[in-house]
């Protein structure tokens, strides 16, 4: 499996000797094997030239940029190599037909809700008092199937998340990381900062996986297709956020790998310092590499691959071969 490279240092990226070359500010040089690289995540201040981007395009390497605050700022999405007019038409068809769009959107929300439930159940079995939240979520989940309006569906999803986040304080039980309601752009407290940072990485990871399929990332179902952004990756990420991001956060807090000292006040909010980002990314990358035995395939499958399988299922759904069912974690 080709690897993801995370760049936190400042420096320059170049094409050199037909491979990727990175030199940091201190002049330290490093060659990165192109043949073993699938994507770059750039957090540092990095100089890039056209020659390098052309090389990335040729090697089908996707480059995600994050700004100074760790927010996703954009992606160099190389020329598609899996072009399929057929797939785009299918995707658009499913989007334009309200019935099929809603049914797909419902699937994404159901998948997210069920994975949230699994996470809560896991902690309930470890004697955390999350029974009430669990019950509320189960109740809300029954409403998903009855809704036939996307905005109402998003509302339900928001409510589920609200109850879910209320359970966070109970799960980790540390006063440093009290949740206090969701806040974004900029996040107001440590927990929100972690959630936002993790989510943005998962969004771009899913986008990279979409690149390897015939699907067009611009057409999403739960998240409306608009003029600006990729939205299909947001849909798929919904399913994986609870089992990847949130569980990584609990691990980081539980094992005290991240503390108050890893945050700094900036532009009216709270930001992760570089060291905190590194620890987070490392843990998330480990989680993505973790394999579980897939029931359908019977072989160990990594979480990253699981994302791709999710996209293949969606492709099959759009082609009318089999109905899409979201991935729900076992254990």
């Amino acid at each position: 499996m080709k690897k993801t490279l995370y760049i936190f240092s400042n420096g320059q990226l170049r094409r050199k000797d037909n491979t990727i070359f990175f030199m940091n500010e201190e002049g330290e040089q490093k060659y990165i094997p192109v043949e073993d690289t699938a994507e770059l995540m750039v957090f540092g201040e990095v100089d890039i030239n056209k020659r390098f981007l052309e090389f990335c395009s040729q090697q089908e390497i996707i480059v995600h940029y994050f700004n100074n605050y760790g927010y996703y700022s954009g992606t160099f999405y190389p020329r598609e190599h899996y072009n399929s007019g057929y797939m785009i038409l299918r995707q658009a068809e499913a989007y334009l037909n309200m019935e099929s769009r809603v049914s797909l959107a419902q699937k994404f929300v159901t998948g997210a809700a069920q994975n949230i439930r699994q996470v809560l159940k896991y902690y309930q079995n470890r004697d955390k008092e999350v029974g009430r939240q669990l019950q509320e979520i189960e109740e809300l989940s029954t409403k998903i199937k009855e809704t036939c309006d996307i905005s109402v569906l998003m509302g339900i999803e928001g409510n589920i998340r609200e109850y879910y986040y209320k359970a966070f304080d109970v799960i980790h039980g540390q006063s440093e990381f009290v949740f206090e309601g969701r806040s974004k752009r900029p996040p107001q407290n440590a927990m929100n900062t972690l959630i936002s940072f993790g989510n943005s990485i998962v969004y771009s990871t899913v986008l990279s996986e979409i690149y390897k399929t015939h699907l067009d990332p611009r057409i999403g179902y739960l998240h409306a297709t608009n003029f600006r952004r990729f939205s299909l990756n947001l849909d798929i990420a919904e399913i994986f956020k609870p089992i990847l991001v949130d569980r990584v956060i609990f691990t980081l807090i539980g094992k005290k790998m991240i503390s108050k000292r890893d945050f700094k006040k900036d532009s009216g909010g709270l930001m992760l310092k570089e060291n905190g980002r590194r620890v987070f990314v490392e843990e998330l990358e480990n989680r993505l590499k973790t394999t579980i035995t897939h029931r359908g395939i019977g072989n160990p499958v990594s979480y990253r691959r699981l994302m791709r399988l999710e996209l293949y299922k969606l492709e099959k759904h759009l082609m009318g071969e089999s109905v899409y069912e979201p991935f729900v974690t076992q254990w």
Partner: protein
Amino acid sequence: MFVIVVYDVGEKRVVKALKRCRKYLNWVQNSVFEGEISEANLTKLKMELDKIIVPDEDSVIFYTLRSTRYSDRQIMGLRKGGQDLII
């Protein structure tokens, strides 16, 4: 598949060999590379190296492991190169 490549080639060709290996693997020490590689890429690398070396004078050794699970890697002294995914 995990591979360790060790080469001993003439001075004139050593840079060429180095550059070819960099494309596929991580540099560890002078004339030593290691890393995760696919079967196809290993064949490609072998072919590329084959074009560079002079069979009578040079030698390249490939150690391939199916996984690194049963291997252990210990370093004495300096750590010169490696395969960090976070830089």
